[in-house]
C-alpha cells in the first residue's frame, strides 16, 4: 500500500549499476543473514531513547554484508549536531525514503533509505505515528490538548477553561514535504492506518486519563475520509487504544493497552466491509506485527502483576480468526516486533529502558542471533 510513484521513479532513474552508497563505509556487528527473505536490502531499527535524554538513534542491518550498524543518523548527518532527537516514536519506509517520527523533538525526519542522509525535517508538534497513501503522509499529534482549571483549598477542582483537549492528524504532502491540512480527532491519538481512502486513528486518552473533568481514557477509533479530510465516523472499541494496522483485505486491527489494573491489553478487529463492525479477538498484546493477512501478537501473561517476571506467549489472527503462534521470546522487556515473513521475526528488547537494549532475529522458531542496539529498540522498517 505504501509504494506508489516514488518507488517507480527511483527504479526508473537508476538503470545503470549503482555507485557505492555513501554509507557503505559504515560497519558494525556482523550477523548471519540466513533466513532473511530475499529482496530486503536494509532493515531499519528505530531506538526510542528516553524522554528528555535526546538519545533516539537509528540502527540498520545491511543485508548484503550482514553488518548491523548502530547510530547511523549521527554518523551520516554530522551537521545535525543534536542527533536524531528525543524519543523516536515511529518509522516507515516509503519508496526510497525513511520517515521517522521524533516525538519530543517535534520533528518528522525524512531520510534517504540508501544512505540515511537527511532529505527534510518537518516540524509537527508532539507527533506520534505515521501512515501514507499515494500523495500524503498522515501524522497523529497530541498537540492542541489542554484544559485549564483551578484548585481550591479543600481539594475541589473547577474547570475554568476547557480548550480543545483533543489531538490532531496532520497531512503532509509527499512531494513538497509541507503540511497542508489538519483535522481534529480524539484524545491523544496514537496509531494510524490507511485503507481504501480512509484513515483509521486510534485515540488513547493516555493524558486525558489523568486530567479533569473525566479522568478517563479515550476508547474510540476516528475514521477520516481522505478526500474530504474530515472525520466521518467514530467507532467505539475499548479504552486506551494503541496501534493500528491494515491487512489490505478489508480488516483493520487495533490494539489496546487496557488500564494496567483490571482491564487487559487486547486486539480488536474492524471489519470495513461490514459497516466497520468492531469485534474483539483476544487479550494479551504487548507487541503486534502483521505479515500478509496474519497478525502476530506477543502478550505477557503476568501483565497486571508488575512485580512478576514477564511470561511472553504468542498468538495470531487471520481474517478475524484466532490462531496458534509460538515464538520463544527471551526478553527482559519486549518493546517491538516485526515479521519479515511468516517464519522470520525481529524483536526489540528494551532491557531496563535506560541502557542500550538488543535486537534478536528468530527464524523458524529459534533464535538466530542477538545484537546490541540503542536504547529501547521498538520500531522497525524494511527497505
Amino acid at each position, binding site marked *: 500500500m505504501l509504494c506508489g510513484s516514488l518507488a517507480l521513479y527511483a527504479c526508473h532513474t537508476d538503470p545503470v549499476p549503482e555507485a557505492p552508497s555513501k554509507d557503505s563505509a559504515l560497519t558494525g556487528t556482523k550477523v548471519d543473514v540466513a533466513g532473511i527473505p530475499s529482496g530486503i536490502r536494509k532493515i531499519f531499527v528505530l531506538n526510542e531513547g528516553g524522554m*528528555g*535524554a535526546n538519545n533516539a538513534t537509528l540502527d540498520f542491518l545491511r543485508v548484503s554484508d550482514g553488518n548491523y550498524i548502530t547510530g547511523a543518523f549521527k554518523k551520516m548527518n554530522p551537521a545535525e549536531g543534536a542527533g536524531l532527537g528525543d524519543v523516536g516514536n515511529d518509522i516507515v519506509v516509503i519508496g526510497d525514503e525513511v520517515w521517522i517520527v521524533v516525538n519530543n523533538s517535534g520533528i518528522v525526519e525524512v531520510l534517504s533509505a540508501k544512505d540515511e542522509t537527511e532529505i527534510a525535517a518537518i516540524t509537527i508538534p508532539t507527533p506520534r505515528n505515521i501512515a501514507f497513501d499515494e500523495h500524503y503522509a498522515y501524522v497523529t499529534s497530541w498537540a492542541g490538548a489542554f484544559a485549564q482549571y483551578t484548585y481550591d483549598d479543600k481539594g475541589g477542582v473547577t474547570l475554568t477553561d476547557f480548550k480543545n483537549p483533543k489531538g490532531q492528524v496532520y497531512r503532509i504532502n509527499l512531494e513538497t514535504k509541507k503540511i497542508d491540512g489538519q483535522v481534529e480527532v480524539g484524545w491523544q491519538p496514537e496509531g494510524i492506518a490507511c485503507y481504501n481512502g480512509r484513515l483509521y486513528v486510534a485515540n488513547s486518552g493516555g493524558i486525558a486519563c489523568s486530567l479533569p473533568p473525566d479522568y478517563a481514557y479515550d476508547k474510540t477509533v476516528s475514521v477520516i475520509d481522505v478526500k474530504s479530510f474530515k472525520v466521518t465516523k467514530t467507532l467505539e472499541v475499548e479504552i486506551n487504544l494503541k496501534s493500528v494496522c491494515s491487512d489490505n483485505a478489508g480488516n483493520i486491527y487495533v490494539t489496546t493497552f487496557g488500564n494496567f489494573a483490571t482491564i487487559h491489553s487486547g486486539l480488536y478487529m474492524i471489519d470495513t466491509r461490514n459497516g466497520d463492525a468492531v469485534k474483539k479477538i483476544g487479550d494479551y498484546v504487548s507487541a503486534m506485527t502483521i505479515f500478509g493477512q496474519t497478525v502476530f501478537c506477543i502478550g505477557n501473561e503476568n501483565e497486571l502483576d*508488575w512485580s512478576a517476571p514477564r511470561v511472553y506467549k504468542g498468538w495470531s489472527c487471520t481474517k478475524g480468526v484466532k490462531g496458534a503462534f509460538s515464538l520463544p521470546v527471551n526478553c527482559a522487556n519486549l518493546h517491538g516486533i516485526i515479521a519479515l515473513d511468516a517464519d522470520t521475526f525481529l524483536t526489540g528488547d528494551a532491557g531496563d529502558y535506560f541502557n542500550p537494549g538488543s535486537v534478536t532475529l528468530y527464524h523458524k522458531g529459534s533464535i538466530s542471533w542477538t545484537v546490541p542496539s540503542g536504547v529501547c529498540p521498538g520500531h522497525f522498517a524494511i527497505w
Partner: protein
Amino acid sequence: MLTARLIVLSLVFSAPIAAAAQEADTLGAARVWSVSRRPVVKPAEEVFLPAVTGAPTRIDAVLRRFSGVQVKDYGGIGGLKTVNVRSLGSEHVGIFLDGIQIDNAQNMQVDVGRFSTDGIGTVALFPGQKSRRLQSAKEYASGAAVHLDSARPSREDGSGGRVRLRGGSFGTVNPSILWDKALCRELTLRTGAEFIGSNGRYRYPYFDTTLVRENGDIRSLRLEATLFGRFRHGDGMLRVYSYGSERGFPGPVIRRAAGFPFSAERQSDQDFFVQGGYELDWTPRYATALKFKYANDYLHYDTHPERNPMALPYDLHFRQRSAYVSLAQSYIPADPWSVDLSTDVQRNTLQSDVGHFVTPVRTTFVGALATRRAGERFRVAAHIVYLGARDAFNTPQAGGWTRENRYRDAWMPSLCLFYAPAEGIEADIFAKRSYRMPSFNDLYYAQMGNSNLEPESAMQFGGSIRFNGERGPWRWEGRLSPYINRVENKIVAIPTSSQFRWTMLNIGKVDIRGCDAKADIALHREGWDLGLCLRYAFQQALDHTKPGSQTYGNQIPYIPRHSGNADLEAGWKGWSLRWSATFTGERWSRAANIPDYYIRPWVLCDASLFKKIPLPSFQNRLETPSLEVGLNCGNIFDTPYQIVQGYPMPGFNILLSVEFSW
C-alpha cells in the same frame, strides 16, 4: 561569641571553636559532664559560617565543598539542587535544621538551593551516624545527615543585625536583612527576610552553536522569625518560616524543532513551617529535649501547553502537610556513661488533583535507644532504632486499584568506636544499617506507583583517621576516611509490560567503596593569614543488580570515581581573597558505561574578594558596626560543564555584594 570577631582563615579551624561555643550554649548553668563534652562521633566536615569572611549565602554552595558530597544541580538559581553523600541517593540524606528534619514525603528530595545561610551558625556533615545527647530519633535514623544549626544571637546586649544587597549576572537581585532584638534578659527575637529575583538567562553551548537558557527565571521571598530563649535550666527556640517562589524550569537540552520552546513549565511554591524545641535539665543527670514541627507546603506545577505546543498538558497541584513531635531523654548514670531514649511521631499527608490520586496519610513512629561511654581516649556508642510507618488513604479506591493500609517497619542498629591514642591523633570506625521508606511518589503516583514496595536499605561501614597539630605560625589538620556502603532493595523505576505504565520495584543493588581525604594547612603571621585546603574523594559505586546484565559491575550513573577541590585563601587587614578549584572526574549518565553516555571531566575555578571595613562605634556599644564589600566570580574560565546530562551549567558569572552589620 568570641569567634565572631576573629578572622579565621580556614573553614576547618573554626570547627573546634564552634563546637566548644555550642556546648557552652546548650548546657547553660548545668554541670558539664565528660560524656557531653567528648564526642564519640565527629562530623566529617563542619563549618562555622559567621567566622568566614564572604561566606556563601546558599547552603548548597557550602555543601559543594565537602568531601564525599555531591550536589546534583540542574543549573541556575532556580534549578533543583539535591545532595548525595558517599554515593547514597538523596533519599538517604537527612537535612536537619536545628535538629528537626526538613522533609518531603512526596519524593524525599530536599532542594537545598532554597535554604539561605542567613542566621546559620554551623553546617555539619555526618556521613554515617550522628551521636549526641538529646538528639531526636530521626537524627539517629538518617543514613547520612547534614545539620544546619542556627547561630545564637551573639551580641552582649542581644541586639544587632545585618543588611545585605547582592546582585550581578543573570539579572540577579538579592536583598536580605537579619535583625536580632533582645526582648528581655532571657529572650531574643531574630527576624529575617530575603528576596531573590533572577532572569536565569545564561549562554551555553548547544552542540555546535550557542544558545541562551530560557524560562529559568525565579522570584522568591523568605520571611522568618525565631525566638531564642535561654533560661536557668534550659534552652528553647521557636521558629516561624515562610517561603514563596515562582519559577520556570528550562527543561533538558534536546533536539527541538525551530519555533518550539524547550519548555514553558512553571512551578510555584508556598511553604510554611513552625518549629520549636526546648531542652531542659531536670536534674544534673537527667535532661529532656522536646521538639515539634508543623509544615504546610503547597506546590503548583503547570506545563503551559498554550505557550508550548510540545508540552504534555499537565496542571497539577499538591499540598503536603506534616506534623511532628519528638521527645528525647538522656540520663547519666555514671559519668562518662549516658543512656538516651528518643521517641518521634510524625504524620504526613499529601493532597493532589493528579488523576486517580489516593490521598495518602502516613503515620511514622521512630524510637531510638542509645548508650555511649566517652572516656578520655576510648569512646563507644551503640544505638538501636525502630522505624515504623503506616499508610492509610482518604480515598482508598482510585484508578482501578484498592489501596490497602500498609505497615512497613525496620530495625536499624549502629555502633561507633572512637580512639585517641595520642595528642593530635584520633581514629574512629562505625557500622550502621539504615532504611529509607518509599516515598509517596514511589508508592502511589498514578502512572508509576507500586504500593508493594519495601523500604530500601543501606549497610554502611566506615572509619576515619584524623590528625592535627601546630608549630609556630603553622597549623595543620588532615583526615582520611575509607568506607564501604551496600544498598539493597534499591527502589528503581521500570516499565510494566507497557512502556506507558511504569512502576517502581525493589530490585537494585549497589556496592560502594570509597575514601574521603582532606588536608588543610594554615599560616598565621602578624597581620596576614594564608590557608590551603585540599579535598579528594574516591568513589567506586558499582551496579550489582543483575549478574550477567550489561550494566553489572559498572559505575552507577553520575558518580565520579575521582573528585576533589582545592581552596586557597589569603587575608590581610580586612581583605580576604579566596580561590577555589573543583574537579569532577569522568562519569556516565547511565549504568551502561559506554561512550554514548560518557560525561567529560571538568575543572571549575571560582574566586572571591572581600573587604571588611570597621565603622566608628555608636551609642556606646560593645560591638563596632562594619561594612563588607565583596565580589564573587564564578566559573572564571567560562568552562562549559554539566552535572546532570542535558542541564548545562552557567559560564562565567559575577555577583557583587554590600553588607552592613551592626
